[in-house]
Structures are given as structure tokens and as C-alpha cells.
């Protein structure tokens, strides 16, 4: 009889745990979706809200990119982390969800710059800042909530479901954008269809709120509250006391900074490199990353679960070490797949296509496309666009772009090379929620774990594409001044993630304990 009761209790516990994971993961996934659609639609948003010929709008656009994406997130971690330790996890991450969903929906409603002028970019910037704040508060709450429900010895496995959401959020955002574009057509999508992914957010958030409202508060937080042991000032306790501040610094320099650069290199710099350095055309480059993301996602759960058995430290450090030693050969191979100087062109097959399009403002757009065919089936297009405002005027300065279409074998090799990088991401990111949760006591956990996470990911990780691009530009300039001074300038950007991950690896190896179990404290 007692065995039967124990089994029934176990089934109820499993159901509760499953609901907790679903409620937390779906909400976090929607927050990531909301956050990413802004980045994925940046090109269209800039034409709608941030005209380049207006310096104020251009400044607001740059601020929206840097400020909300990276800088505001740690502030969100402080504001909502404190709230989560004072009033509870459940209500705090409900607030972050409402803020994120509301601001995303509102971006979809703002009239363009052509209708309301300066107000349009200003409102978008404000809403983007709210998005950044909300994201800063969401993750710590979801990870803490799940970890405080999870049974001992299984926290890595259960929190790894939260870890899949950042990657799946990116995948869903790319999917929704591509589906909408296909449904309404490219022209209508640029005109008004881009609003659909933003407006859709309100439905997703609504569903998630209903699910989360039904959940109970975390048992460890409730226990602490009933005992009257809640922290009165989580910020002072987290960062004002040496005993805890030293752990915050250790979490940052021994884990999250390295994890952040590995994450951003594998998921975002890889896409940027394929598009800008390899010139792979838009749809194919996004397909490569989307397939790699989807194929590697289960590894978050594999490594999260594995970390319960062998510890968080060896898996996270192995992910960093693999990145440090293999990034340069991986990116060199990516580059070589589209390096036209090393490929034989069938010059006789070259075609030139010229197209004239009359635009809405009466100007004439001339698009000249030269298509080159190479051995192995690679196709490269040189696209030159010029605008003539009236028949008597000179055409504008030509805008040149290159678009490479890969043959099947190179396409799948690129997928494999990105997949390998995303597997590194799963190694460092899969166990990190459990690692952070176990480092800090319940009374200040939300605050203490959120800050190093968002500094590591938002600032160290988030700046990766910008710092890497700046390093490549410096190396290219040096090469132009003294030819051959930098052997492969396109690889120079990788020094940033390699060095940050290198320092983090050494600190993690020497100073981190493999097992830390403070969840019930």
C-alpha cells in the first residue's frame, strides 16, 4: 500500500515538475522571441523608424542597438532580481513577461517616421529599453523557479529545458519572420507585414500569462517567507558583503564571461561571418544557422543532465577549451568554402542581367547582376544598384553587394561547422543555470545569479560581434598599409572570444569547485 502511495505521489510530483518547466520555459522562450525579432528585422525597422539621412534618428538607432541589447540587461537583473527576492519568483517573472510582451506588441503599432517624425524612433528606443530590462529580469526568475522545484541531483537536467529557450527563441523568430514574408510577399512584408511578428507576441504572451498564473510560488521561497527569513535588502546582501560578492565575481570571471563569448560566437558571430565575410546569400545563410541550431538544441538537455553526474565545471570548461583551440580552424574552413580566389571560374558561362524599376517617388532603380559560375557548382552574383532621380541627373554612387550560393556539399559542410560551434554553446550554456543557482543561497539567489549572468552574456557576450568586427577592420587596414602584415585578417575577430574564454577557463579551472549545493540554504 505504501509503495502504491509513494508511486502516486511521485506521479503527482512529476506532473507538477512538468507544469513548472513548461510554464517557465514557454514564457522564457516567448521573451527571447520578442527580443530577437527586433534584431532580425533591424534592416526593415531602420527604414521605417531610423532614416539614415537624419542624424538624430541614426543616433537613436545606434543607441537602440547597444543600449537595450546589452547595457540595460544587467540593470533589469538588479531591478527584478531584487523584486524576486523580496516578493517572490512567480510574480516577478509575470511582470517581466507582461512588460516584454506589451512593449513588443506596442512596437508593432507605432506609426513610421514618415507619419509622426522624431516620435517614432524615440518611442521605439524607449520600448526597446523596456524589452532589455524585462529580459534582464526574466531568466534569473525562470531558472531559480525551476531549480527550486527540481529534486536534488537532477537540477542540471531540469534547468536545461530553460537553457534551450534562448536558442529556440531565435529559431522561432526566424521561422515566424520567414513564414510571414512568404505569406504576404516581400514587398508587402517591407511595407506593413513586418508588424505581424510583433503583434503576434500579444497572443503568445497572453497564453503564457494564463499558464504562469496557475503556478504556485517556489516551495523554497514560500518556506523562507513563512519562516520570516526573507532578505530585507537583497542588493546590499548580494553585493555589499564580501562573502557573497566574491562568489558573484567568481561566477562572472570563472564561468559566465567565457560562456557568454562562446554563446555569441557560435550563434551570432557565425551568422554574421557567413553573411558578411563569406557573402553567402540571405536565405541560405539563415537556413544554415537554423538547421544547426535545431540539430544541436537537444544537447542542452544532454549536457545539463550529464552535469548532474560528473559536475558542472568539467563540461563548461571543456566547451570553452574546445572553442579556444578550434575556432580559428573552423572559421578558416568556413572562409575557404567561399573563397573565390581559390576557385576556378567558367568564364564563358558568365551572364549579365540588367533590370530597371520605377520607384514610388518616381526615381529609377537600375540593378545590374553579373552571375559567375565556379567549379563544384558554386554561384556568385555581383549586384550593382544605382538610383537616377530624373533623366537629366547623374546616377547615384553604385551600391555593390555580393551573394554566394553554395552547392549542396559546401552547404552541408557549413551546417556541420556551425553545428559544432552550437554544440560548444550547449556545453557551456546547458549546465550554467544549475551552476549559478547552486552557488547562491535562496534568500538572495534571484539577485545574485542574475547580475553575473547578464554581465557575462549581455556585455561580454553581446559585444562579441562588435569587438570582433572592429578587430577585423583594424587588421584589414594594417594589411592594406603593409601588405601581408596580417596573414588572415578575417580571422582576427576571433581573438576576442578566444582571449576572454581563455582567461575564464584558467580562473574556472583553478578557483571553481565542481560541486556546490546551496539550493536548500
Amino acid at each position, binding site marked *: 500500500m505504501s509503495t502504491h502511495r509513494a508511486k502516486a505521489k511521485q506521479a503527482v510530483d512529476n506532473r507538477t515538475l512538468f507544469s513548472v518547466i513548461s510554464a517557465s520555459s514557454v514564457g522564457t522562450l516567448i521573451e527571447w522571441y520578442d527580443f530577437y525579432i527586433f534584431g532580425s528585422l533591424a534592416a526593415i525597422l531602420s527604414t521605417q523608424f531610423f532614416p539614415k539621412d537624419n*542624424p538624430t534618428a*541614426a*543616433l537613436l538607432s*545606434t*543607441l537602440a542597438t*547597444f543600449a537595450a541589447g*546589452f*547595457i540595460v540587461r544587467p540593470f533589469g537583473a538588479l531591478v527584478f532580481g531584487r523584486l524576486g527576492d523580496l516578493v517572490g519568483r512567480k510574480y516577478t517573472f509575470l511582470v517581466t513577461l507582461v512588460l516584454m510582451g506589451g512593449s513588443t506588441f506596442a512596437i508593432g503599432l507605432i506609426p513610421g517616421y514618415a507619419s509622426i517624425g522624431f516620435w517614432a524612433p524615440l518611442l521605439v528606443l524607449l520600448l526597446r529599453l523596456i524589452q532589455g530590462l524585462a529580459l534582464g529580469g526574466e531568466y534569473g526568475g525562470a531558472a531559480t523557479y525551476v531549480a527550486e522545484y527540481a529534486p536534488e541531483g537532477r537540477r542540471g537536467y531540469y534547468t536545461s529545458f530553460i537553457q534551450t529557450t534562448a536558442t529556440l527563441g531565435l529559431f522561432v523568430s526566424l521561422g515566424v519572420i520567414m513564414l510571414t514574408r512568404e505569406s504576404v510577399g516581400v514587398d508587402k512584408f517591407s511595407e506593413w507585414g513586418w508588424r505581424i511578428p510583433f503583434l503576434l507576441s500579444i497572443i503568445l504572451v497572453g497564453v503564457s500569462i494564463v499558464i504562469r498564473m496557475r503556478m504556485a510560488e517556489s516551495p523554497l521561497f514560500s518556506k523562507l517567507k513563512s519562516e520570516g527569513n526573507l532578505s530585507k535588502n537583497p542588493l546590499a546582501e548580494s553585493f555589499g558583503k*564580501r562573502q557573497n*560578492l*566574491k562568489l558573484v*565575481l*567568481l561566477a*562572472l*570571471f570563472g564561468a559566465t564571461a567565457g560562456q557568454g563569448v562562446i554563446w555569441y560566437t557560435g550563434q551570432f558571430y557565425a551568422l554574421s561571418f557567413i553573411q558578411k565575410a563569406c557573402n553567402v546569400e540571405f536565405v541560405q545563410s539563415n537556413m544554415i544557422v537554423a538547421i544547426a541550431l535545431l540539430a544541436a538544441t537537444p544537447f542542452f538537455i544532454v549536457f545539463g543532465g550529464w552535469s548532474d553526474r560528473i559536475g558542472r565545471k568539467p563540461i563548461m570548461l571543456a566547451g570553452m577549451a574546445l572553442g579556444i583551440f578550434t575556432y580559428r580552424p573552423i572559421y578558416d574552413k568556413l572562409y575557404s568554402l567561399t573563397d573565390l580566389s581559390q576557385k576556378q571560374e567558367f568564364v564563358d558561362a558568365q551572364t549579365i542581367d540588367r533590370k530597371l524599376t520605377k520607384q514610388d517617388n518616381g526615381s529609377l532603380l537600375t540593378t545590374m547582376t553579373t552571375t559567375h559560375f565556379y567549379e563544384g557548382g558554386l554561384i556568385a552574383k555581383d549586384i550593382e544598384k544605382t538610383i537616377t532621380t530624373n533623366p537629366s541627373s547623374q546616377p547615384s554612387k553604385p551600391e555593390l553587394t555580393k551573394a554566394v550560393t553554395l552547392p549542396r556539399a559546401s552547404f552541408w559542410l557549413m551546417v556541420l561547422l556551425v553545428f559544432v560551434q552550437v554544440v560548444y554553446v550547449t556545453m557551456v550554456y546547458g549546465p550554467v543555470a544549475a551552476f549559478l543557482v547552486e552557488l547562491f543561497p535562496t534568500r538572495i539567489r534571484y539577485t545574485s545569479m542574475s547580475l553575473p549572468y547578464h*554581465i557575462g552574456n549581455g*556585455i561580454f557576450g553581446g*559585444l562579441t560581434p*562588435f569587438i570582433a568586427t*572592429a578587430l577585423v577592420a583594424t587588421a584589414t587596414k594594417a594589411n592594406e598599409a603593409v601588405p601581408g602584415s596580417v596573414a588572415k585578417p578575417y580571422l582576427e575577430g576571433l581573438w576576442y572570444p578566444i582571449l576572454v574564454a581563455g*582567461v575564464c577557463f584558467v*580562473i574556472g579551472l*583553478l*578557483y571553481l*569547485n565542481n560541486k556546490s549545493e546551496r539550493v536548500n540554504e
Partner: protein
Amino acid sequence: MEQVKKYLGIIWILLGIYVGYERITDSLIKIGSDKLEDRVFGWVVLCVLVPIVVGGLILFGKYALDGEYKSKE
């Protein structure tokens, strides 16, 4: 190993100072650039990244030197 962890604290402090010097120099060049994106990026590095890296590494190094990261027996 405890001694290595302790005295490596000096390396983390020196690393913080070096990164601070190197990044401040670089971001000042960026702030003087004609391009708006470079200027904003320079300010971001100077006002956000530099204080976190420099302050954080120096404090981390100090704690290491003080023996705060000793392994529990």
C-alpha cells in the same frame, strides 16, 4: 595549489590594469572617429566594459590574494 591560487591574484590585478589601459586608449580613438557607430561603441566600451573588467578583475585579484578562494577542507 592554494599558494598558486593566492599569488595568481597579482596576475589578475595586473591583467585588470593592462586591459583598462589598452581599452581606454582604443576607445578614446573610437570616440574621436567621424562615424557615429564608432563613437557610440567607444563610449560603451569606456563607460560600461572598462569599469566592469578593470574593477572586477582588480577586486577578484585582491580577494584571491587575501585567500578568499581557499578550497574547503
